C-alpha cells in the first residue's frame, strides 16, 4: 500500500468522514450526516452526489412530502474502495513521523 493507492474520490476530508460513517452502518440519515460533518445542506448534497456517481454510495428516500427523509448507504464497491483507501492511509501514517 502506498500514496498511489489513495482514492481521489474518498480522499477529500468531508467525503472520507461520510464514508467512515456509511461503512459503520447500513443506512445513515441525511440530517445526521450533515450535523456530524458540520457542513451545509448544499455542501453535503454535492459531496454525496460525487460518492453516488462513483458507485460508492446509494440513496433512498422514506416518507412523503415534508416528512420525507433521505438515507445514504454504502455499496459493496464503496466498502472495498474505503477499506483500500484506509489501508493506504495507514501505510502513509506508519511511514510518516507523528506530528507535533
Amino acid at each position, binding site marked *: 500500500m502506498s500514496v498511489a493507492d489513495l482514492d481521489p474520490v474518498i480522499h477529500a476530508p468531508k467525503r472520507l468522514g461520510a464514508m*467512515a460513517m456509511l461503512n459503520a452502518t447500513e*443506512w*445513515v440519515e441525511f440530517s445526521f450526516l450533515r450535523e456530524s460533518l458540520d457542513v451545509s445542506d448544499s455542501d453535503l448534497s454535492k459531496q454525496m452526489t460525487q460518492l453516488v456517481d462513483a458507485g460508492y454510495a446509494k440513496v433512498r428516500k422514506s416518507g412523503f412530502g415534508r416528512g420525507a427523509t433521505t*438515507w445514504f448507504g454504502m455499496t459493496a464497491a464503496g466498502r472495498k474502495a474505503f477499506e483500500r483507501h484506509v489501508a493506504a492511509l*495507514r501505510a502513509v501514517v506508519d511511514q510518516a513521523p507523528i506530528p507535533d
Partner: protein
Amino acid sequence: MLSNMETNPHVELAEADRLARKARIAATDYPTSASLVLIVADVVLIGVFIAVGLSAGMIVGWLAFLAIFHTVLRLRRHARPRAPWATPTSRRQLLKTITLDVAVNAVWIPLFFLARPVAIGLLLAALAWSLVGTLKYRHA
C-alpha cells in the same frame, strides 16, 4: 477540524474513526429512556407472571409491547445498523451473545422449575444490575 485533515493523515484517520464510532452508536445504542422503559416493563411482566402465572394473553401482550418498542426505537434512530453477520467482528460478537444467552438459560430454565424463588431473585438482580449500568452510563 476538517481543514486540518487535508494535510494530516493522522488527523484524517482519527476523525474518520470518531465519525464511524458516532454512527455505530447512533445505529445501535439504546437511549437511557428506552432502557428504563424496558427495565420497568420487565419488572411489570415478572410481577404479572408471579401474580397470575403464564397465559396466552400475557405472551401476546408482551410480544405486542416488544414489537411497538423496537419499531419506535428504530424510527427514532438516525442511522440503521449493519446486519450482525456483516463483518468478522460483528459475527464474533453475535456468536458470543448467542453462546452467553444459551449458557445463561441452560442454568436459569432448570432453576425456574426446581427453585423458582431463586430464579426470580436472580432475574430481579440482573435487572437491578442493568438499571445501575444504565444510570451510570447516563452519568458517564
